[in-house]
């Protein structure tokens, strides 16, 4: 029973002997690379690249549901890719713009404290 299922998967026209299996599988590598890059400093994030990832992810989420047959693997992959892109973009925005705000806050608190000493 299990053997014939495995055989039908192995010999499938979009199975592991074909590019139609491996190309979408390898596409997960992009999202995984992005997740690994979560721990990299925010200076190294590229806005154009992450925005491209978000847009590709969103467009292919819809694409995967509109083609026949529906491709749930591609759907999950695309949603995940868009999510990682969104997270990286917010990380970088926080680093680029919010970091100035927290720095300014610290400076003003420091000057207030030095005034208290008088």
């Amino acid at each position, binding site marked *: 029973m299990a053997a014939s299922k495995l055989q039908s998967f192995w010999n499938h026209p979009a199975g592991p002997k074909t590019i*139609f299996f491996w190309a979408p599988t390898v596409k997960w590598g992009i999202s*995984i690379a992005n997740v690994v890059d979560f721990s990299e400093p925010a200076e190294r994030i590229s806005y154009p690249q992450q925005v491209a990832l978000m847009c590709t992810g969103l467009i292919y989420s819809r694409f995967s549901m509109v083609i026949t047959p529906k491709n749930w693997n591609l759907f999950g992959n695309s949603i995940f890719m868009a999510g990682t892109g969104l997270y990286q973009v917010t990380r970088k925005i926080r680093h680029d713009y919010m970091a100035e705000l927290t720095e300014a806050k610290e400076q003003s608190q420091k000057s207030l404290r030095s005034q208290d000493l008088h």
Partner: protein
Amino acid sequence: MASFRAFWNSPVGPKTTHFWGPVANWGFVAAGLADINKPPELISGNMTGAMCIYSALFMRFAWMVQPRNYLLLACHVSNETVQLYQLSRWAKGQGKQTEHPMAIKYNA
């Protein structure tokens, strides 16, 4: 005019997602070109390497899929070129991290 209308109303035309899917993939090429002069320290080896593998496989996918998708093929050939170039820049920069001209030297 008639050919534009045919394109506009095509079942794989700009009113459908079948068009915008491959167009979205050109975004990777555009992003790569936008970053072409970025200092190598800022390139992500993980992402660029993953892109190289991804585009290599999808070139074959675009060729073998029925019907053959030349637009997708062109997109991934371009992306492969750009990403391999960025990967080579990243690799060259790997051994030279400490010699960046902006690096502050505290010797003497």
